[in-house]
């Protein structure tokens, strides 16, 4: 399974290289692809936790884990998940 995923990843990456080669403004395309990839990953992350795992605290974790709070002091915000 994992080797098949890697093969799929390499094939799609080769396809991406071909599209990039044919684009008139390559650097601009790279920037926009980076931006949409970031948004896509955030969407996947939220979809996985909110829709598939029914875990409504995903947004809170994205904000607190990623920015201003210490990873190990999350218990201080336990009341937020209790209120949901």
């Amino acid at each position, binding site marked *: *399974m*994992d*080797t098949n*995923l*890697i*093969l*799929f*990843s*390499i094939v*799609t*990456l*080769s*396809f*991406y*290289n*071909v*599209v*990039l*080669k*044919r*684009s*008139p*403004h*390559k*650097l*601009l*395309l*790279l*920037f*926009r*692809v*980076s*931006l*949409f*990839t*970031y948004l*896509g*990953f*955030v969407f*996947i*992350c939220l979809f996985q936790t909110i829709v598939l795992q029914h875990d409504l605290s995903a947004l809170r974790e994205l904000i607190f*884990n*990623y*920015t*201003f*709070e*210490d*990873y*190990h002091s999350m218990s201080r915000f336990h009341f937020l998940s209790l209120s949901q």
Partner: protein
Amino acid sequence: MIISEKLLDGYDLSLVIPISQFGILLASADYIALGDPFQWSLLIGILIVCLGSFVLSISAANEHLSIRMFSELRHVPGKLWALVLGEALCFTTSAVVSYLGIKETAHPDAIMNSLKRLHLGPIAFHSAFFFNIGQQLFSVIIFAIYILSRKKYRTLMFLPLITSTKYLAWAALAYILAEYTYFIAFTITHETSILRALDNLSIPHYTYLFLLLP
């Protein structure tokens, strides 16, 4: 950013991409230097992976897989080799930072806690997928600053997306799929050594691809 721009605008991508694949060899050397268990078989395996990536990338520009496509390498200018080496070094730095960031040891923990105390932004360690989300945001911010600082791109940046919707949609979809499946593959594999995981995940398929060569 500067190296990427020079490579993208100055040279044919069908030459740049295959040569760039060998940056993974430098990254592998760094993984070994950082303590990943070393075996000659693993190094040979990584070399096969690089050759496989090279063949796949260069074949995207050619109609058939053929030994003749290797002859193009003889005419590669020295400046291109220098730029590709610079790109490989940048890739190696990024790969090493990612490697250190997703290892669950005391060192990344200390770095993570220090960065969180500094309130520098989105950083989540220990998981390849979550680490990449933070890394991607930093990449977008640096990219935006570079593009806005260049007069050549500043006006183009705010043009409606309609002009290149086709390229953008396909490129973004392909890139998201490639990255996501790559992270999932590394998440579900049972290997703890990154070199061994690279070997085990990639070699079987590349050996099949070599059979296609005449």
